[in-house]
């Protein structure tokens, strides 16, 4: 009874951890949190003057709402960057006017699931994750003993238990050590 109820209780969070786990396992192949896009632009050479003048030119040329500008930065002798709200950015060569309009968007659901899985938010979530882990330990242990007879630990269950144990033991022994 307890095994069933706790199993239902942790089902949603187990899915969150599993889906996020697959997502972050492949972090070298894709970004599980953000999507990036960029568009080439050419606004012509920027006028000589102060950096705020250059910023105003960029904003006007691209018809950007001036209120959305967060700041600017002269990255190199020629590379001028203007930062905007919504994680948008204009990066432009001041001599040629060529550059990129960059956008970053969070991956819906993945961003939130990864933040929970990796405990980015700390605080109370640390305790919730600990409780969740204890419940999973409970499920794992009770799951071993839940069946009796030929289906249980004294029957075929022991072989599956052993097979599940072999995987981490083999990797610990031959790969990690």
């Amino acid at each position: 009874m307890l095994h069933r109820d706790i199993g239902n209780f942790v089902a949603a969070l187990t899915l969150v951890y599993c889906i996020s786990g697959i997502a972050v396992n492949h972090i070298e192949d894709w970004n599980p949190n953000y999507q990036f896009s960029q568009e080439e632009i050419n606004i012509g050479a920027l006028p000589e003057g102060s950096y705020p003048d250059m910023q105003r030119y960029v904003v006007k040329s691209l018809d950007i709402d001036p209120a959305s500008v967060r700041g600017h930065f002269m990255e190199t002798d020629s590379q001028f960057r203007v930062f905007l709200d919504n994680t948008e950015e204009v990066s432009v060569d001041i001599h040629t006017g060529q550059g990129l309009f960059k956008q970053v968007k969070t991956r819906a659901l993945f961003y939130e699931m990864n933040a929970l899985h990796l405990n980015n938010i700390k605080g109370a979530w640390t305790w919730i994750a600990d409780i969740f882990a204890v419940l999973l330990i409970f499920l794992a242990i009770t799951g071993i003993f839940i069946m009796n007879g030929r289906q249980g630990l004294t029957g075929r269950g022991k072989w599956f238990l052993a097979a599940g144990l072999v995987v981490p033991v083999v990797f610990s022994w031959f790969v990690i050590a």
Partner: protein
Amino acid sequence: MLPGKNLTFLIILGLFIFLSVSETISAEPAAKTGGQVYGAGVENIESVSISAIAADPEAYNGKTVRVEGMVTDVCAKRGCWIELAGGASGAKARFKVADGEMVFPMSAKGRSAVAQGRVVTETLSLEDARALEAHFAKEAGREFDPESVTEGRTVFRIQGTGAVIGDAGADD
């Protein structure tokens, strides 16, 4: 009497009670600075300009500094570093934390920030300098020409203990 349902109810109730009395997150609004506090935050000490450290990193090696600037880049994969620009054009400092210790969101770009940590310098050979630039280029998703780095150099980072990222943009 259904003990299973009662147990589930009690667990959910317990979690709600727990949540109601707990701190929610470590990154919370900082009353004085109007921003999100990460890690240990920052102490009320005088800030050092990023361009001063960049000009002579060895002079600050091992010292704890507080710096201020605009966030120009964020680690896109793990949120484990931010780059702060301040002072002279092109002067930037990489503020690095251990993976998971603090996680900076991409939305921090363009915001003003105050950060504190220990300056760590490293003298790189030509080969190592190229490898580092190649790594940075890969992180930023841009092409890198090894020939653009022609000599070894001393680089620095700030090993972070805390930061406050402002709610407003650097120009607000």
